[in-house]
């Protein structure tokens, strides 16, 4: 429970209130829709690849603070990076969210480590991961993805009667 407090830190609340790179890119080379049917969170990620480099990226959608802040900070941190570097961040972010990443060890997450608290809130892990999952789908030209999709490494039968 102590980590819950840590989760709603100023930086997350700030990105929720004033999301960076919010909107859609008109001439996107890659895009995907992400959906969490458990809570209705829905967002789109559009991006432009200049060769292997992410030239521009934006997100848009309705989501909880954790999801929105995660999307905002994700766009800020992958912009200008190569696709391979972004994929590394996606993997590290997922691992951190489920408690598989040693934050004291070598990683590239930087400020994204503020989301580490979700590992103690299993029902909120999907909120934090949805933007990253959607970015991964966009890279791989998967038009839409869901936190409940079979290809989702986080797929788990959390009750949704």
């Amino acid at each position, binding site marked *: 429970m102590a980590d819950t407090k840590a989760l*709603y830190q100023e930086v997350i609340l700030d990105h929720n209130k004033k999301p960076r790179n919010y909107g859609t890119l008109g001439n996107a080379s890659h895009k995907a829709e992400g959906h969490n049917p458990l809570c209705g969170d829905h967002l789109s990620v559009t991006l432009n690849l200049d060769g292997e480099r992410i030239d521009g990226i934006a997100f848009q959608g309705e989501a909880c603070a954790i999801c929105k802040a995660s999307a905002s900070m994700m766009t800020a941190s992958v912009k200008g990076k190569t696709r391979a570097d972004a994929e590394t961040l996606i993997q590290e972010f997922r691992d951190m969210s489920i408690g598989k990443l040693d934050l004291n060890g070598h990683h590239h997450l930087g400020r994204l480590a503020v989301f580490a608290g979700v590992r103690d809130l299993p029902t909120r892990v999907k909120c934090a991961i949805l933007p990253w999952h959607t970015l991964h789908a966009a890279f791989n030209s998967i038009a839409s993805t869901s936190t409940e999709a079979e290809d989702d490494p986080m797929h788990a039968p959390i009750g949704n009667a």
Partner: protein
Amino acid sequence: MKLVEPALKPQLASTFNVERIRADFPILKLKVGGKPLVYLDNAASSQMPRPVIDRLVRYQTTQHANINRAVHYLSETATSEYEESRRKLQCFINASEDREVIFTSGTTDAINLVMHGYGRKFIGAGDEIILTTLEHHSNIVPWQMLAEEKGAKIRVVPINDAGELLIDEYEKLFNERTKFVGVMHVSNALGTINPVKHMIAFAHARGVPVLIDGAQAAPHMKVDVQDLDCDFYAFSGHKLCGPTGIGILYGKAALLERMQPFKGGGDMILSVTFEKTTYNTIPHKFEAGTPPIAAAIGLGAAVDYLSAIGMDAIAAHELDLLNYATEQVNRMPGVRIIGTASMKAAVLSFAIDGVHPHDVGTLLSQEGVAVRTGHHCAQPVMQRFKVPATSRASFAFYNSMAEVDALIAGIRTVQKVFS
């Protein structure tokens, strides 16, 4: 078949002592993250009092064997306790006969039983089934499956902005093809108490049977199936201080007898050859296989417990909690109550401006307050109010006014974090 009186006489509302009642619930002493647990997710599942826990322990330690089979002592004891529990449930809902009470795994199982046992036999192509916008998915999906299989059609009763069924519209939906009505007694998402007695009488005047989903009503008010004159009434044990994995379907004996079995297996037969099987009489026809015996006996203990307090006293205390909570929330700027029916059970669905329900739920949990956030398995209701989800506080008779205050303080904390 005779009615069994509850073990203790119901008490008067004026003697309602919430602190004494709370002492019966071991889990209410729990601390969550160092704060006292404030459990306001009773519409999802209620907590279990010591007498029910003790009953389960006594059954497992001194009475357990399989039922309806062997002639040895334990089997006879377990069978008689199981059937005694059925009579307690009969008394609890005032059914005229104990064989009208079928043990199921819960409300969902009970509705599926009616869909398979009644629907698949008596509803055909072009027939119409009336449901309401308020229904829980468990009273929508089985009927959609039936409609798809048979080529039948679902008609839906709309609601107004308060979350009340439009009864004029309900009445207009009837025609010569109407074959079945399914409606919830109390809305799990909004708390609306539906005028089911009137709806049943209207349907019966047109020869249409009615199933009532009583999952949210049976724990909170006196239910009298003979007075309602419903054809089917379903509810779950775990929302009524009983164990999970048990619930009941009440059905009128004449209807149950005409229905086909839902599940095949042991106990539901009189004789079996590879050429022909003769089904058992009701209720056994619908209880194939070994049932959750301990859970059924625990449910009997739970209705004894509730009856001793008195369903009227329970309803009165919960109405006090709802009125107090509603008054407090209405005074808070930036908080909107969703579901403002004139007749409501103690369910308070709300939205906080600018804060997603999942963030509300996580932050309230940090304060020790347990509420449900999400679509409450009632997505058509969410669509009607144009929200993806709500936060829902749902009260039980063991909740106190101080716990309402904790909820209000928690909402203020959420607003402060997001200010």
